[in-house]
């Protein structure tokens, strides 16, 4: 007997020896509100259909009714684990539209903020990944160390998660010398802790057995499916927008693009762990080179860009984050904004490389692509 199920525009056939399992939307390992409908034969996964939209707030439509400066706090709320990078992408797009030149100090502050946020985001990935494979200790460590970075960002922007720090033409506020000293101290401390992480995970046979060879994403598939960020680099493709298409002042820093040829969950974990170190390198260099000066260019109070369209992209912790803006040149509100978010592409690729694995491994693979549902649904 064949049963037919219809939902969300999908039609799925279930035979006698198969079952249809609903994972989520309220599930601890779905990182928000993601529903996965899984067709299984015994323990084996045959088909996955991600159902999204549970966190939809209509950000793109809201943006059409807000002036350019009012949109910045809204971009915070898309990928809430890397708000700084969201701000960065949006602000860069508007500046390109206006043809603004940013003071040096502001550029450096932006890079420091974005990289600190990347460290915080990757630490949270380590925490939640540990949680999903059943290691509660890792969860505690990750959150503990993320707290140190959040304290720094709190001093910088005034908030712990939704910073609203960058402005069109610069940044919101300046930081003093003590901040940089504290920042370097925290980075030194974090370096010590990272050694603990390496001992905790990479020498751990249990962890390796649980993650190696799970969810293999081949490089050619990854490129075809539009996967970006650490997930793509874990498949061995050397692609980082900070290097390929340098924005802001990223061409001045010396850092490596981390790749791994493992293509599996383990590789994705290692790439992120190593990227923390690279980000720390960038922050250190930025603190060394930061000049004195203004933190904001002269920008009119009401921003009314000329008619035109622009697409700017940044490397967010999850991949390529692009912002498309069309301005009609008449009003102080954008005519249309579109965000190209990395998590969406990564989740879309997810069903293709996880056919035939066990259900328990599916959770590991799902955790390793590090998606944020606020980003996907917007």
């Amino acid at each position, binding site marked *: 007997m064949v049963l037919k199920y219809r939902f969300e525009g999908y039609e799925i056939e279930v035979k006698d020896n198969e079952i249809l399992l609903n994972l989520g939307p309220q599930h601890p390992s779905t990182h928000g509100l993601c529903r996965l409908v899984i067709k299984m034969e015994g323990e084996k996964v045959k088909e996955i259909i991600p159902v999204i939209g549970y966190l939809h707030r209509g950000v793109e439509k809201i943006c059409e009714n807000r002036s350019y400066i009012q949109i910045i706090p809204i971009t915070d709320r898309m990928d809430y684990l890397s708000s700084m990078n969201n701000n960065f992408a949006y602000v860069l797009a508007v500046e390109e539209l206006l043809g603004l030149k940013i003071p040096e100090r502001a550029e450096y502050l932006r890079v420091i903020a974005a990289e600190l946020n990347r460290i915080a985001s990757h630490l949270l990935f380590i925490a939640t990944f540990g949680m999903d494979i059943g290691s509660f200790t890792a969860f505690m460590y990750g959150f503990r160390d993320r707290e140190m970075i959040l304290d720094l960002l709190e001093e910088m*922007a005034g*908030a712990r998660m939704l910073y*609203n720090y960058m402005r069109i033409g610069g940044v919101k506020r300046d930081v003093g010398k003590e901040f940089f000293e504290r920042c370097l101290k925290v980075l030194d401390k974090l370096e010590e802790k990272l050694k603990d992480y390496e001992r*905790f995970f990479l020498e751990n046979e249990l962890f390796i057995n649980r993650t190696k060879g799970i969810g293999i994403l081949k490089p050619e598939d990854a490129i075809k499916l539009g996967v970006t960020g650490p997930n793509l680099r874990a498949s061995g493709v050397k692609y980082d927008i900070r290097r390929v298409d340098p924005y802001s002042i990223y061409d001045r820093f010396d850092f490596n693009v981390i790749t791994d040829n493992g293509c599996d969950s383990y590789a994705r974990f290692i790439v992120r762990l190593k990227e923390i170190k690279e980000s720390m390198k960038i922050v250190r260099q930025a603190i060394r080179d930061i000049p004195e000066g203004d933190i904001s260019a002269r920008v009119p109070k009401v921003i009314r860009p000329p008619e035109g369209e622009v697409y700017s992209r940044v490397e967010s912790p999850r991949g390529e984050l692009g912002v498309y803006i069309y301005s009609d040149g008449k009003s102080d509100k954008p005519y249309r904004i579109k965000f190209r978010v990395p998590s969406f592409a990564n989740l879309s690729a997810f069903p293709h490389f996880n056919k035939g694995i066990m259900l328990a491994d599916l959770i590991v693979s799902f955790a390793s692509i590090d998606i944020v549902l606020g980003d996907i649904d917007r």
Partner: protein
Amino acid sequence: MKLKEFMKKVSHVLPLFVTLKHLFMKPITIQYPDERLKLSKGTIGLHYLDTNKCIGCGTCARICPNKAIVLEDAGVKEIKTARGVIRRPIKHPSIYIGRCMFCGLCVESCPTKALEFTTFYEIASYERKSLYFSYKELAKRRE
């Protein structure tokens, strides 16, 4: 060779030493209502309104993305001008904190710096009514 094989066998025990090390560390959690975390200088908390400085221009109400700020009549105020003291009706901002997302655009846009942020963060309440902060309540200094 033998040692390597042996190490591989016991490698899942090694991470235990990391956790063991943490056993002797100071706890990092705090007992919240009794102890409090030290906040940074620039932490954004509840607004504070200096009614002497506020000129009732309404810039804050206009820039608020969530329209959380409304202007409320604040009686008649004496204003010093070049021609002498004049009396005129004035409005002050009141904030519906339940709608506020603490983006700080109102504080930045204030021309006389009458609005500022305090570090008071315990605003949670059982009633929706008490989330409305009139200009009189905003003018109270909170720690």
